[in-house]
C-alpha cells in the first residue's frame, strides 16, 4: 500500500504554509516543495473532549509536521472497535484510517485506545491501549503518532522525543525542556547568569550544561525529573562543552586546568579527569562516535578551527574538514555516517552543513546565514539547530538534505543551543 521508498523518497510538505494552533508560545510553520503524501483519515477520539488534553489534534499535528501525510476529512465518526465503512472511506480517497477513544479510569488515569486500518486492503493494522495520568496525555498522543508513523513508513518516529534549549530574555536565562513539537515547555534551570552547551544523557534522564552562576564556566549534571544536580567539573579556570559517551558513564569536557583549552574525560559523577587531546592549540566541542571509541572535536592546531577525529584510547588526531577556514560544532548521526557542523562562509555567514563521511560530500542544510548548534534526531532523519532571522533567534528543524524545514517560533525570547533528546524518556 504505502511502500517505504515512497515515504522516504518523497518527503514533501504542503504547498502552502500551514500555521498550527498556537496553544503555547510555539508555532510551527512548514514550508517546502510538495510531493506525494499518504491520504489518511484521522477521526476525533470518542470522549476525548472530557479530558484536559484532546488526543487527536496532537496526533494530527505530529503527522502533518512530518510532511508525509495529507488529511481526509468528513468521514463518519467511529471509535477503535468494530469495523469501519471501508467503501465510504475509499470513496473519500483515504488510504488509512485512525480512530480511538478516551475513557476515565476509576483511579483517575485515562485509558487511551486507538486502531489503525489499511483502507485499501480493508484490514486491521493493529492498535493499542495506554493507561496514563492526565499530565501524560500529550505523551500518549505522541506515542500513538509514532506508532502510526512507524507502521506506515517503516521508520521509527520521533514525535514522543523531547528537546532541550536555552532561552534568554529580560536579563534571565532558562534551560528548558519541551516536546519535539515545541509544546509543553518546562523550565529545568533559571539563572541571571548565562547557561550554555546543554547535552542530553543517552537515557534521556539527565542534562549536562555549563552555568556561569559562580562567575566562571562550570559543568553541571541535573536530573530533569527531580531537579537534583551536581557539579561534575569545576576545576581552576574554565570548564565547558560537556558530551556524553554512548554508554552514559563518561563525559568529555573542555578544561583549561592545564593551560589553554584541552579535552578531558570525566566519570559521570565527577572525579579525576583524564586528558585526551595533546596540543598547544584550542581543542574543544567534543562529540563521541556512536560506538564510543573516538571523539570528533574542533581544533585550531592547523591555524584555524577545523573538525578532527581522535580515538579515545590513544592514537593520532585525523583532520575531517578541509573545505573553508572555519568549521565548528560537530554532531554525528546515530548511524555514524553523517557529520553535521557549522561552516563559516565569506566572513560573517554561518551555515549548518552535513558531510557524508564515506565520500566527503557536503550538503548545505539551511537557507539562513547565522546558524549554530546542529543536533540530530534519534532516528537520524532530522536536524534541529538555532538561527537568527530578522534580529531574533529561533529554532529550526530540517531533513538532512535541507529540503523540508520547519520553524519553531517563540513569543519574543531569544532561543538558542537546541539539543534533541533520545528515544525513551
Amino acid at each position, binding site marked *: 500500500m504505502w511502500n517505504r521508498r515512497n515515504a522516504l523518497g518523497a518527503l514533501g510538505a504542503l504547498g502552502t504554509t500551514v500555521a498550527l494552533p498556537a496553544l503555547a508560545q510555539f508555532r510551527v510553520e512548514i514550508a517546502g516543495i510538495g510531493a506525494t503524501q499518504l491520504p489518511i483519515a484521522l477521526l476525533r477520539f470518542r470522549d476525548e473532549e472530557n479530558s484536559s488534553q484532546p488526543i487527536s489534534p496532537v496526533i494530527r499535528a505530529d503527522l502533518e509536521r512530518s510532511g508525509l501525510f495529507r488529511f481526509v476529512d468528513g468521514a463518519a465518526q467511529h471509535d477503535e472497535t468494530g469495523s469501519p465503512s471501508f467503501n465510504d472511506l475509499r470513496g473519500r480517497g483515504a488510504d488509512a484510517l485512525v480512530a480511538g477513544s478516551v475513557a476515565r479510569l476509576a483511579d483517575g488515569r485515562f485509558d487511551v485506545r486507538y486502531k489503525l486500518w489499511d483502507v485499501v486492503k480493508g484490514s486491521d493494522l493493529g492498535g493499542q491501549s495506554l493507561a496514563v495520568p492526565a499530565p501524560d496525555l500529550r505523551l500518549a498522543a505522541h506515542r500513538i503518532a509514532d506508532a502510526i508513523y512507524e507502521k506506515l513508513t517503516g521508520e521509527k518516529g520521533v514525535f514522543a522525543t523531547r528537546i532541550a534549549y536555552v532561552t534568554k530574555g529580560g536579563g534571565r536565562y532558562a534551560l528548558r525542556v519541551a516536546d519535539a513539537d515545541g509544546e509543553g515547555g518546562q523550565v529545568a534551570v533559571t539563572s541571571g547568569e*548565562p547557561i*550554555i*552547551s546543554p547535552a542530553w544523557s543517552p537515557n534521556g534522564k539527565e542534562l549536562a550544561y555549563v552555568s*556561569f552562576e559562580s*562567575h*566562571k*564556566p562550570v559543568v553541571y549534571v541535573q536530573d530533569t525529573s527531580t531537579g537534583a544536580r551536581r557539579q561534575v567539573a569545576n576545576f*581552576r*579556570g*574554565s570548564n*565547558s*562543552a560537556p558530551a556524553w559517551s554512548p554508554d552514559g558513564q563518561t563525559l568529555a569536557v*573542555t578544561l*583549561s586546568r592545564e*593551560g*589553554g*583549552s584541552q579535552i578531558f574525560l570525566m566519570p559521570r559523577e565527577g572525579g579525576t579527569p583524564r586528558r585526551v587531546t595533546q596540543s598547544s592549540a*584550542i581543542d*574543544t*566541542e567534543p562529540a563521541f562516535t556512536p560506538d564510543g571509541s573516538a571523539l570528533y572535536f*574542533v581544533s*585550531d592546531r592547523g591555524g584555524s*578551527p577545523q573538525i578532527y577525529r581522535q580515538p579515545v584510547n590513544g592514537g593520532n588526531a585525523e583532520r575531517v574538514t578541509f573545505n573553508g577556514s*572555519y568549521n*565548528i*560544532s560537530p554532531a554525528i548521526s546515530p548511524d555514524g555516517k553523517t557529520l553535521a557542523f*557549522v561552516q*563559516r562562509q565569506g566572513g*560573517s555567514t*554561518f551555515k549548518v552543513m552535513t558531510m557524508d563521511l564515506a565520500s566527503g560530500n557536503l550538503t548545505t542544510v539551511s537557507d539562513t546565514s547565522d546558524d*549554530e*548548534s546542529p543536533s540530530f534526531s534519534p532516528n537520524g532523519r532530522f536536524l534541529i539547530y538555532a538561527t537568527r532571522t530578522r534580529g531574533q533567534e529561533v529554532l529550526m528543524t530540517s531533513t538532512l538534505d535541507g529540503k523540508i524545514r520547519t520553524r519553531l517560533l517563540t513569543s519574543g525570547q531569544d532561543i538558542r*543551543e537546541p539539543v534533541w533528546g533520545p528515544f525513551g524518556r
Partner: protein
Amino acid sequence: MSQSLSFSPIQRAGLGAMLAATLLAAGCASSVKLDDTPVETRTPKAVDSQPPAQTSQSGVNTVDLNKNDLGASAVGKVVYFDFDSFVVKEEFRSVLEGNAKMLNASKQRKLTIEGHTDERGGREYNLALGQKRAEAVQKSLALLGVADGQMESVSYGEERPAVQGSDEAAWAKNRRAELKDR
C-alpha cells in the same frame, strides 16, 4: 614694635614634633592608600593605627597626581584585543604594570582575569578564545613578578558583552580581558 618670629625651645620642640608627626602622618597615609585602599575610594584616611610592620617609619611614598586620576579608578582594569587575536598590545602595558604593582605589594590579594570575545563565531570556540586572552594577560602579569597562585583565568566567551551592537565599534569594546579583584 615688630617681633621676629622666634620660638622658645619648648615651642620649637613641640613644633618639631608636630612637623614630624605631620610628615609621619603623610607617610603612613600614603602607604595605606596605595596598598590597601580600593582604587575607587580616594578619601584620605585619618591615621589612627600603627603603620604596617614592613613599612619603614621614615619612608615617604610619592603620589604622582599627574599619573593617577583621583576621580576614577587609577589602575586600568581592561585590556582590549584585535579580532581573532590574543596578543596583549603595548598600549596596555600601564594597565598590566599597575595591576602587577598592586598584586606584588600585597601577596594575599587575588585577581580573576575574565576573557571575552565579540559575538561572531561559535560559543564554545569563543569561550576558548576568551580563555586565551585571559591567559595571555596572566602570563604578562607573571612576567612582572605576580605569583600564579594569586590569579585565575576564566572565560565568558561571547556571553557577557560590554556593549550591545553588531558593528565594529561594539565588537572592539567586547574583545577584552577584565581584571577583577576577588
